[in-house]
């Protein structure tokens, strides 16, 4: 690795070197990344493992006569660059020609200055990271007498830089830092065990809150003790922010240009239609620096931007990368998503719902008979974003007469995505960014099917 620099300028120089090798009639896009990670795991007062990792990689896309070939390698060695380019070129001839297949062109949209990099993280000593993991484990264990164990208590951080260069003139770089604490607690009472996690996120260690992460893990694990399986029926369902963010991620995933063009979106022909309750305004904005997944440039090197997907219940827009935009006769929304090992796909990065004006407690107070869902499982297996079928395992609390009542678990909630969007009856004022591509907020649905006993 001698001679390479892992900052953005060094990575961009490598991408440019590959792009400069383009033959006449050939368009090239090179994506180069470097990442440094630390992970510390504490268990029973000791450090269980400490990982220090450094990764580099390059992905090269070659387009010629409307056909593309792709190759990648997990190294930036000089010989590997040549191999990757050669392999991508070799792969071109097997693709079917398509007039819309091309690398992105600069579109003049200014790149936001997001300030996602903190030198404080880079300078943070390993001993301090170790101490934080140990402290998290200790605080979680002592947070509540019913905590019987801490399955994992972890500190993790990453520093990443990337560059995109194309023969069409795109030159984009980015760098960012991020760190987290996460604890997974076990709680026990009368022979019954329940689990819960807590976390804290930031761009630098000073952002992290050990006490809150520990308290959250303890609260989430103990609140399910003594839980029962509810009866089946159709009742009001409240999703807490952690759950609603996962739901939003799925909904937003159906609003992408590629799914629409390929006949895989349930909203394909609905642009301009009322598809949701008038309460719903859904925005994807990767330029919001508060979003965990904020980024100033997309996977093709174009500036990310604020895209309003649904406004007052009306479907306004699908997100696009440059290829799906050309196919749709529109412009990219800066929504190309990818790693160095894949070609650009299309997706949202930071979706959020415009919050309402009532607190979660006020919303619950208005519900006579319902459930508050605080955790879901099996979303990947029980939700079909093409048909819209929605079914998920859930846990949470019963709501009776406007009050939170007994804990419940081992039940499912089911509906369809289409129906849920129109069944939305209230939105809380508690919008918050979570460690995913969506923000969470308390959502109330008039009636969903709950399956239990």
């Amino acid at each position, binding site marked *: 690795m001698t001679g390479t620099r892992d900052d953005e300028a060094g990575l961009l120089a490598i991408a440019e070197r590959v792009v400069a090798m383009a033959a006449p009639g050939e368009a090239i896009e090179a994506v180069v990344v470097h990442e440094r990670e630390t992970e510390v795991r504490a268990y029973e007062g*000791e*450090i269980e*493992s*400490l*990982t*220090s*990792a*450094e*990764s*580099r990689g390059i992905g090269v896309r070659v387009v010629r006569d409307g056909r*593309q*070939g*792709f*190759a*990648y*390698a*997990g*190294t930036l*060695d000089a*010989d*590997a660059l040549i*191999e990757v380019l*050669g392999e*991508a070129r*070799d*792969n071109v001839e*097997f*693709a079917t020609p*398509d007039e819309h297949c091309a690398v992105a062109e600069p579109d003049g949209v200014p790149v936001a200055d997001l300030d996602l990099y903190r030198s404080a993280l880079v300078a943070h000593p390993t001993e301090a990271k170790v101490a934080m993991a140990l402290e998290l484990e200790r605080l979680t264990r002592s947070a509540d007498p019913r905590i019987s*164990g801490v*399955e994992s208590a972890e500190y993790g951080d990453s520093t990443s830089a990337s560059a995109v260069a194309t023969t069409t003139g795109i030159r984009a770089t980015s760098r960012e830092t991020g760190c987290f604490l996460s604890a997974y607690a076990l709680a026990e009472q009368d022979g019954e065990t*329940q*689990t819960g996690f807590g976390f804290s996120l930031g761009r630098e260690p000073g952002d992290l809150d050990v006490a809150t992460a520990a308290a959250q893990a303890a609260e989430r694990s103990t609140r399910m003790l003594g839980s029962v*399986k509810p009866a089946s029926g159709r009742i009001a369902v409240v999703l807490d922010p952690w759950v609603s963010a996962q739901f939003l991620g799925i909904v937003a995933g159906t609003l992408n240009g590629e799914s629409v*063009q*390929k*006949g*895989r979106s*349930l909203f394909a022909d609905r642009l301009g239609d009322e598809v949701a309750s008038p309460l719903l305004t859904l925005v994807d904005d990767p330029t919001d620096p508060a979003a965990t997944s904020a980024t100033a440039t997309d996977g093709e090197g174009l500036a990310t931007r604020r895209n309003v997907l649904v406004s007052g219940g009306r479907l306004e827009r699908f997100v696009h990368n440059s290829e799906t935009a050309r196919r749709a006769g529109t412009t990219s929304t800066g929504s190309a998503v990818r790693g160095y090992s894949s*070609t650009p796909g299309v997706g949202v990065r930071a979706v959020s719902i415009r919050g309402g004006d009532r607190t979660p407690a006020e919303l619950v107070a208005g519900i006579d008979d319902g459930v508050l869902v605080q955790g879901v499982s*099996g979303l*990947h*297996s*029980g939700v*079909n974003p093409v*048909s*819209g079928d929605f*079914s*998920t*395992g859930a846990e949470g609390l019963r709501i009776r007469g406007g009050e939170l009542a007994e804990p419940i*678990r*081992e*039940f*499912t*909630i*089911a509906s369809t995505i289409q129906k849920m969007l129109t069944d939305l009856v209230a939105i809380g004022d508690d919008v918050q960014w979570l460690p995913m591509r969506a923000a969470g907020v308390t959502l109330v649905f008039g009636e969903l*099917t709950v*399956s*239990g*006993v």
Partner: protein
Amino acid sequence: MADGNGSSGIADTGSLETGLLDAGLLADTLSVAMATGGEFAEVFVEDRRSTSAVLDDGRIEELSSGRDRGAGIRVVVGETTGFAHTADLSQAGLRNAAEAASAAARSGGGGVREVTLDGPSGPSSAVIGVLPADVPKARKVALLERADAAARSADGAISQVSARYGDSQRRIQVANSEGLLTGDRQIRTFFSVSCVASGDTGLQTGRESVGHTVGFELFDRVDVDDLARRAAGRAITKLGSVPAPSGEMPVVVGPGGGGVLFHEACGHGLEADLVAKSASVFAGRRGEMVATPTVSLIDDGTMAGEWGCFAIDDEGRPAQRNVLIEDGVLTDYMWDRLRARKEGREGSGNGRRQSYRHLPMVRMTNTYLEGGLDDPEEIVAGTDHGVYVAQLGGGQVNTATGDFVFGMTEAYLIEDGRLTAPIREGNLIGNGPEALLAIDAIAGDFAMGSPGTCGKDGQGVPVGDGTPTLRVSRLTVGGTAA
């Protein structure tokens, strides 16, 4: 892709017997790793090449080639494991990583330890018929086009088809401070077809996939046209589906379709790392009756050609057939090196990792339920009212509580002992220990299921599963119908 050697220090002759790095370099790296003390050090070297090709919307979108190689080094000092990895396989690169891993383990005592290795040894993996790397790319692409044509001609309601071909060659080498030096070459080949059918009831999807730890000869016995027609058929069937029922009822799972049930209901809970942390409902229950006496559950990394098989695990231990539950009694957990060592016992060949960038942990291989004596048709005929699941989708489990969930991707109502209407997709939920005791029928029609990727702690590894037809007397079906 041309083989890199020279500066990278990799010697790739394409021969099965040749290791990735020579014994001297590995021994030197281990010595550096142990230079400031420690009980154990290991170098895991990996060189992975992969090809994937995607057909979507009637065209070959892209052919992609990947290459990943590097080494992961771990050092164990007391209770702490230090880990570092590098893509730089030169002596300097390996020494740097070894020092980083050693520093990470925060070794206390001093002392130099020389490591000597026994020299290249160990069997290499499965018999490989046709190396995917030797097959012209045009032949791989042609398979996709055949599948597309077959799916589209299966039924006029098929509105979209995507197909994926993938192959990978993963060469690994493991050397450790106990003198072990071994290696393996794992070849995997994969094909999948996904269809969308459009009708008055909206869009429905159907998917079929096949994957084996074999080379391109996979397609001598797998007909991609047939695979495509089955995927199309699944989507078409679901166009006529009714809402899934809601609530507790008997669930019959078809042959090969239900391995994920055991993977989730108890497989993860039998992984020794979770057991040791009391994060499993099966902790401390060895020797106890945990399932119906007709249940025998096996995890077997030696099943030749299956998706989860290998010659050695990612800690260098030969794959094994492990009986987890025998006639309803919990006989053993699955082990990696770290957990086995703490218990003073042998490992079980279940130490796996996604890549050289990851620490190994306890993972399943091919997990299956042995066949029983019941007749599959009688199982359905003997079920008054319930659900028949021909194919389960993905699943998830909380090992500490045993609560699990998995999806039904093809399922039917059972009414008066007969399969009737197909039902829409949804989840099934249950509790592992309760479900194992609620299995009241097992047929003799055993079949392996589709290839899967099991995720744990952010690491994905290929796993296989299998079951005969079986019935669980009570699970909760998460549909919308009353």
